[in-house]
Each structure stands twice: as structure tokens, then as C-alpha cells.
């Protein structure tokens, strides 16, 4: 079925286009996948550790325990902020 020409597709693809010189000497355009930004801590904004990022088809393959740390607030707060929160909660 002919794909409807998507006016924005050219612009979107241009960002991901890479010019590659093939062994045969031709120059071919290849499209890399979008680069996904790192997950950030909700309090301090530092990139989260133990939290891989990637396109959906890659993330779906990962088990849940591979997507974020197995800790309360894992994948939401960095370990240092989580510690501060638990400390404050414990002392209150």
C-alpha cells in the first residue's frame, strides 16, 4: 500500500542522516537511530545511574530489573537524593 508522503519526514530523517563512503566508492546516505537523552534525577537533575536509555524496541527487550535499580525511588531519584529522602523520613 503506497505510504502517504509525510511532509515532515524529510526534515526528521535529515537529522538522522549519515553520509557513508562504501567500499565500491559510492557515497550512500544511512539513517542512524535517534539519540535518546539520559534519565535525570527528579531532585538534583544529575543523570541517573543504572538506567539505560534507548529506542523503544531496545528498551522493550530489557527485563524490568535491567531498566532501573531495584531500590525504592530507583529510576526516579539518584542514590544520593534517595538516601537524603529516606534519612529525612526516618528522622521525622
Amino acid at each position, binding site marked *: 500500500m503506497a505510504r502517504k508522503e509525510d511532509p515532515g519526514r524529510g526534515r526528521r530523517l535529515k537529522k538522522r542522516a549519515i553520509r557513508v563512503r562504501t567500499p565500491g566508492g559510492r557515497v550512500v546516505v544511512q539513517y542512524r537511530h535517534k539519540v535518546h537523552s539520559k534519565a535525570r534525577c*527528579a*531532585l538534583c537533575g544529575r543523570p541517573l545511574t543504572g538506567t539505560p536509555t534507548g529506542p523503544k524496541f531496545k528498551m522493550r527487550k530489557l527485563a524490568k530489573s535491567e531498566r532501573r535499580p*531495584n*531500590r*525504592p*525511588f530507583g529510576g526516579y*531519584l539518584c*542514590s544520593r537524593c*534517595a*538516601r537524603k*529522602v*529516606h*534519612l529525612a*523520613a*526516618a*528522622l521525622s
Partner: protein
Amino acid sequence: MRGECAVGVMEIGRVCVKIAGRDAGRRCVVVRVLDEKFVEVTGPKDVSGVRRRKVNVRHLVPLPQKVEIDEGADDESVREALREANLLEEFSKGTGRGKI
């Protein structure tokens, strides 16, 4: 920041809260002091979900409460001591799932 290096705070029977690791936010009792940095704690597991394990004191914050147990006490006597100090209820909450 925390008084854990003060002498006599982190001793046997001291009630603590784990602030790091997968059981962060849960209560536990110090069962044995291994050395300056490590203690052995237990929840016990079926009470607060903290299994008997060696823990770095930096991952614990001591609470004012203490329970009467002797060194290396088994989970049964720890649970008994907690019941006497009626801390059982408090130990079962606090899985750190709350909103901040």
C-alpha cells in the same frame, strides 16, 4: 551529619532505618557489631523485610529506640523483644514507596 560515629549509638539492640539499598526505608535491629564500619542487622525478614545481613553503618540511621536482645540473637528472640517494646507495628510499615 548523623551521630552514628558517636560512641555507643550503634550497639546491639539499636533500632535503625536502612537508608540505602533495595530495603531502604525499612526498620531493622542491630544484632552484632562487627567493626568500626560494619554491623550485622536483622529485620527480622518476615517483620520488616530486612534479612539478616552485614551492613555498612553509613547505610543505617540509628533511632532513639533500643530493644533488649543479646549479641547474635536469633530472629525469634528479636521478634519477641520487638513485641515487648510494641514496635512490631512500626516495623511492618515504611517500605519507602511514599511520595516525596
